[in-house]
C-alpha cells in the first residue's frame, strides 16, 4: 500500500473471449519490476493466455495492458521490450547456437563485434560457452532449453516471459534449472513471468504467485501465503496435498468438524457459519490413542523416500492423508494430533478482497485485545 512506484506491467479489467467462450474474465494484476512472478494453474486455466497477452501475441477483447504506466494494447510484438522462452523452445533449425542467440541483436542492427560480445556473454550466462558452433539438432533437451533462455535474454528485455519452459525436462534437470533460473533472474534484476502447472516449481522459484483457474485469478500472494492460507477449495487442493473437511465455525477461534470442537486461530465469521477446514498432511502427527485429538485406523501406506504417506480413516469415515516419519501397521488404531494453528478455515465464495479485509479486521481485534 505504500508502494508508489509504477508497476512494470499492469492489467486493468482485461478479458478475452472467442465467440461465446470466455477465456479470461476481468483480470486485474500489477507486476513490480525486478521480481519473479509465477502464473500457476491447470491447463486451460488461462495462464498461458495471460503470458501471450503480455508478449503481444494475443489481443484482448476488453481492458487495458500497461507497460510502465503506458497503455500498450496496440504495440506489436516486435516493439515490446519483452522476450519469451517458449515451451517447445522455438529455436531456428536453420541456424546454429551462435546464430540463434545472435538473432535478436542482429535484428537490432548491432555491429558484428557487439553481437559477438553479446552472444559470448549470454552463452556463458547459461553455461554453454563451448557450444556456439553446434547445430540445434546436436543438442540435448536441457541444452536447447539453455539456448532458448540465452536467445531471449540477448535482447536485454525488461521482462522475460517463460512459458512452461521446464516441463519437457527430466526431474533432476528440472530442479537444477529452477535454481539456475532463479539465480539468473536475481543476477540480472529483470522481471520474470513464469508460467507453470507445477505447484512445487512455483513455490520454489517465485517471489509472488498468481493461482489461476477457469480464466480467473483465484488467489495471489507470496508462496508462503498461498500455501498456508489458501483462499478456497481449488487453491487448497491444487497447491500441495490437503485434507479438506466440512466444518462449522461455532464462534471465533472455535471450529467444529468430525463431530468434535477444536480450538483454532481463525475469526471474523458469522456464528455457526458453514466452512471448509484444511489440514496439511505434513502438519498431522500420529500418536497414541490417549494423546490423539482424533482416533483413526491406518488404511494404507506407501514409502516416499523421506517419509511415509499414510491414508487413515477416522470413526466418521473421513479419509486422512498423513506424512509420517515412522512406519505404521495397516489396520492399527492410532491417535491423530495437530496444533490449533495448523487448522486453516476457508469460507465459501470469499473473494480475495473479502479475505484480506477480514484478516485485517480480526488481526486488529487481536491487537486491541492485547492492549
Amino acid at each position, binding site marked *: 500500500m505504500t508502494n508508489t512506484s509504477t508497476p512494470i506491467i499492469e492489467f486493468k479489467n482485461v478479458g478475452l473471449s472467442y465467440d461465446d467462450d470466455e477465456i479470461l474474465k476481468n483480470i486485474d494484476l500489477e507486476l513490480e519490476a525486478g521480481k519473479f512472478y509465477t502464473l500457476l494453474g491447470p491447463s486451460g486455466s488461462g495462464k498461458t493466455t495471460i503470458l501471450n497477452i503480455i508478449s503481444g501475441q494475443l489481443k484482448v477483447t476488453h481492458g487495458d495492458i500497461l507497460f510502465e504506466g503506458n497503455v500498450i494494447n496496440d504495440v506489436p*510484438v*516486435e516493439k515490446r521490450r519483452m*522476450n519469451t522462452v517458449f515451451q517447445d523452445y522455438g529455436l*531456428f533449425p536453420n541456424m546454429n547456437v551462435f546464430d540463434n542467440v545472435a*538473432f535478436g541483436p542482429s535484428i537490432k542492427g548491432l555491429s558484428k563485434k557487439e553481437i559477438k560480445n553479446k552472444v559470448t556473454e549470454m552463452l556463458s550466462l547459461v553455461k554453454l560457452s563451448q557450444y556456439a558452433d553446434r547445430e540445434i539438432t546436436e543438442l540435448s533437451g536441457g541444452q536447447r532449453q539453455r539456448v532458448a533462455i540465452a536467445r*531471449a535474454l540477448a535482447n536485454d528485455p525488461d521482462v522475460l516471459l517463460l512459458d512452461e519452459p521446464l516441463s519437457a525436462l527430466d526431474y533432476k534437470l528440472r530442479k537444477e534449472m529452477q535454481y539456475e533460473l532463479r539465480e539468473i533472474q536475481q543476477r540480472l534484476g529483470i522481471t520474470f513471468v513464469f508460467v507453470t502447472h507445477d505447484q512445487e516449481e512455483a513455490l520454489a522459484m517465485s517471489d509472488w504467485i498468481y493461482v489461476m483457474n477457469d480464466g480467473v485469478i483465484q488467489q495471489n500472494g507470496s508462496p508462503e501465503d498461498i500455501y498456508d492460507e489458501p483462499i478456497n477449495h481449488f487453491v487448497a487442493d491444487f497447491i500441495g496435498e490437503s485434507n479438506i473437511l466440512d466444518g462449522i465455525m461455532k464462534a471465533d477461534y472455535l471450529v467444529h468438524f468430525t463431530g468434535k470442537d477444536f480450538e483454532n486461530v481463525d475469526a471474523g465469521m458469522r456464528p455457526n457459519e458453514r466452512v471448509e477446514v484444511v489440514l496439511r498432511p505434513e502438519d498431522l502427527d500420529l500418536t497414541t490413542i490417549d494423546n490423539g485429538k482424533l482416533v483413526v485406523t491406518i488404511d494404507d501406506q506407501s514409502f516416499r523416500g523421506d517419509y511415509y504417506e499414510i491414508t487413515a480413516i477416522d470413526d466418521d469415515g473421513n479419509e486422512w492423508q498423513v506424512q509420517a516419519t515412522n512406519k505404521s501397521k495397516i489396520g492399527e488404531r492410532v491417535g491423530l494430533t495437530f496444533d490449533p494453528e495448523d487448522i486453516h478455515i476457508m469460507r465459501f465464495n470469499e473473494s480475495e478482497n473479502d479475505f484480506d479485509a477480514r484478516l485485517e479486521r480480526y488481526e486488529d481485534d487481536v491487537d486491541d485485545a492485547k492492549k
Partner: protein
Amino acid sequence: MMPKSKKQRQLFYVVPYSIWLILFVFAPLVLLLFQSLTTSNGDFTLHNYAVYFASGTYLKMTFNSVWYAFLITLITLLISYPTAYLLNQLKQKQFWLLLVILPTWINLLLKTYAFVGLLSKTGTVNNFIGLLGIAPQQLLFSDWSFLLVAAYIEIPFMILPIFNSLAEINPRLEQASHDLGANKWQTLRRVILPLSMPGIKAGIQAVFIPSLSLFMITRLIGGNRVITLGTAIEEHFLVTQNWRLGSTIGVILIVAMVIIMILTRDRVRKSSRKRG
C-alpha cells in the same frame, strides 16, 4: 531362414517396376547413347558431337533452351512463392490447394489448344480488345505468349513443393522471430525463406528440367519464333530423320538435366565449426 525369405519377398515387390525401368528408362537411354556414338555402320565415332559443338546454330539453340527454361522457372517462382505463402495462411488451405492443382488433371495438349483459341487473331482476347476499338494483334507465335503458356502450365508444379515445405515449418518459429524483434519482412527473409529452401529447390527441379525439353507448347504457341533443343530433337527425329544427331542432342539435354539435379539437390546441413 526368416530374413532370407523376407528379402525374397521384398525383391518380388520390385519386379514389376524393375521391368518398367529396364524397358522404358534404361534401354532407351542406352540406345540413345549408342546411336549418338556410332556411324550408320555401327562404328564408334564422336562425329555427331563434333557437329553439335562446331555448329553455332546448335549452340545458340542450347543457349535459347536454357534461357527460356530459366525465364519460365523465374516467372513461375515469382508467382508461386507468394501464392504458396498465402495459401498456407488460409483456413481451408487443403481446399484452395486442390483448386491450384486441379488444372494439372487436364490434358496438357487440351490446355495448350485452349490458349491457341484465346490468343489467335480471331480469338477471345482479340475479340475483346476489338470492342475497345483496337485492331487485332498478333499474339500467338511470340516469345511472351510462349512464356505465358509455359509458366501457366508449370505453376502448380512449383506451388506444390513450396507449399509443402512452408506447411512443415513450425508456426512457433515465426512467433519466436517476432518476439525477438523481427518484423514480417525480416522474419520472411531470415527464417521462412531459408527453411522453405528445400521446397524451392524441388520446385525449380520440377519446372526447369521439363522446360528444357519443351517442344509441343513451343511449336503450338511459339511457332517458329522460339527454337529450342526440344524442337530440334523433334525436327531431327520426325522431319530430317537424322536420328544420330537427334540422339546426340538428347544425350546433351540429359547431361544438362543431371547437372541441374546436382546443383539443386538438398544438402544435409552439416555441423560447421568455423567459429571455434
